């Protein structure tokens, strides 16, 4: 296990290096000038040139690349020219809301999706199966911002139960925190939940036809034990994969949802930084997201062995 883990972690490095290179190139190919964004439309050519020199924007691109990579190797993601602080600090500040939102959305998704998917599989072909799966299809098809806007209309504008937008950190009270996050979490969770529910159903359908399920029934076990103990654990590997992927996607910032609900998360940070041409922030954030993505996948791979004893990493 230890050897496998080391191998996997080391193999992350080339992946991240490729991401860093592509990340840097794409951003620097994008037209736009940070200096003119910072100084505004009124700035003279002279002022602009001065600021460019100050920011190091006039240096050749390869020098800037190696400076940035050199910093990365020392754990320095760079400097935000617009916010005037280290990129790591900017990401750290925005990570909290995104993490909270992601975890809440994922919990909502899993809590509903797995039981509904299991029920649909157990009652394959009945009205219940068809109703659940129609809703799941709707959940995948409807954009989360549309769901978000409708939730705002209903719960904030009409009923006045919840705040329309904004964010309160946990330090301002747990209930307050939830009040602000519940609507965006639901609108994100619906889509992820729909995916998980469909995967749960199809994976369960496959497992329910297995001989060991018949063995479990022949033992006299109650239906819920057969379903949740014997079937679900066998069906869980593909479900876990979908959960891992959706979690990784959400960590990357739900750009649109964070914008609709005005949540200062990673998604908003990226959008704002792109508008400001704040190169190093964009580069740093993209790299951070890539790292989170591969790490979550690694965790998911390790969980496979926990769920299914036949999965072993050390051999081969």
């Amino acid at each position, binding site marked *: 296990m230890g050897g496998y883990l080391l191998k996997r972690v080391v193999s992350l490095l080339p992946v991240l290096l490729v991401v860093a290179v592509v990340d840097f190139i794409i951003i620097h190919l994008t037209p736009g000038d940070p200096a003119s964004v910072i100084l505004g439309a009124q700035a003279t050519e002279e002022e602009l040139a001065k600021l460019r020199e100050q920011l190091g924007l006039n240096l050749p691109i390869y020098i800037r690349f190696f400076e940035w990579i050199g910093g990365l190797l020392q754990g320095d993601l760079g400097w935000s020219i617009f916010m005037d602080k280290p990129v790591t600090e900017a990401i750290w500040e925005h990570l909290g809301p995104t993490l909270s939102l992601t975890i809440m959305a994922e919990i909502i998704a899993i809590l509903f999706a797995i039981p509904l998917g299991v029920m649909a599989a157990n009652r394959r072909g*009945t009205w219940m199966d068809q109703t659940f799966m129609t809703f799941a299809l709707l959940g995948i098809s409807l954009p989360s911002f549309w769901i978000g806007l409708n939730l705002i209309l209903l719960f904030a504008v009409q009923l006045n139960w919840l705040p329309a937008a904004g964010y309160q950190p946990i330090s301002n009270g747990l209930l307050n925190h939830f009040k602000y996050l519940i609507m965006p979490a639901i609108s994100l969770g619906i889509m992820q939940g729909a995916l998980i529910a469909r995967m749960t159903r199809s994976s369960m359908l496959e497992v329910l036809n297995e*001989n060991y399920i018949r063995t479990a*029934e*022949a*033992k*006299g076990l109650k*239906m819920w034990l057969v379903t949740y103990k014997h079937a679900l654990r*066998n069906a869980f590997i593909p479900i876990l994969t979908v959960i891992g992927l959706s979690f990784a996607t959400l960590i990357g910032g739900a750009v649109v949802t964070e914008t609709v609900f005005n949540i200062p998360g990673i998604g908003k940070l990226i959008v704002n930084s792109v508008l400001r041409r704040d190169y190093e922030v964009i580069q740093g954030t993209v790299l951070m997201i890539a790292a989170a993505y591969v790490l979550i996948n690694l965790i998911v791979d390790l969980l496979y062995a926990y769920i299914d*004893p036949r999965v072993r990493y050390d051999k081969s």
Partner: protein
Amino acid sequence: MIHVPLLEVKNLRTTFSTELGQVTAVDGVSFQVDSGETVGLVGESGCGKSVTSLSILRLFRKHSGTRLTGEIFFEQKELLQSSMEELQEIRGNRISMIFQDPMSSLNPVYTVGNQIAESLMLHQKLSKKAAQEKTIEMLTLVGIPSPDKRVNDYPHQLSGGMRQRVMIAMGLCCQPKLLIADEPTTALDVTIQAQILDLMLDLQKQLQMGILLITHDLGVVAEVCDRVLVMYLGQIVEEASVETLFENPKHPYTIGLMKSIPTIDGKRGKKLHVIEGIVPSLHQIPKGCRFAPRCPLADEKCRQHPPDLFEIARLHQVRCWHHERIGVGGVAFGG
């Protein structure tokens, strides 16, 4: 005193809805199994043996469109009308099943100990610790070496023979009155086959169980069964004691099955006997006798009118219009 059989199946019909319409996989099957008795249920693949055995415990998925009619009495209790709770009380406790394929019949993600102990905790209300001890005892009984270690193994860590022993331990741990064994040795080596069958018979003597043994292997039947039911296309075509069946088979299908067994003194290079044709689809059941399209004795009557089961001697029934033309040992029979 009236004799009450342990299991009595009366006129069982099992139908499935398929995309091509309703099919009747088991059509009017009746038989009995007594305590301490071993009854063989034989026939080709697809003749309804397994469906018959699954019907006894109603092991079909709830929304699969399976319909069961007839009556099944177990210890005088009707099973087809029982509630699911009553049935779950009987499954694995009073009636146990052992399935054909030990590779796929054990849950791959739980240890074999867990899977056996589960039954014990459920039906015998044992504590976790007591169930674990009893599990090790059962593994010893079925001849698994170092059972205290094996109990923590996962199915994939065991060989096929060991897994089938685990299945038997699981089936017998609650000391059932009836054991339904669906081709328990088909997937195993011949030497292991003999060991497993011996083990089942040994335990049968100790527990006085009735066994319903489903198999397509007439060799196994000759060795272990008291009585035999031969099935073809969802119906019983012959029922007799094992001696009668082998000495005096009366149904052309039974005779065909017996002729298909290769013998050690048979000429090398001589072709083995095969029953002509294939089992028809359940969607196209012949109008008259179901075996008529493949039967060397079939005539117009056979093709038009389905025969009933004739009782031709005590405990010997046969479903054939021409049973009288077939002499002792199946002679006077073309082919």
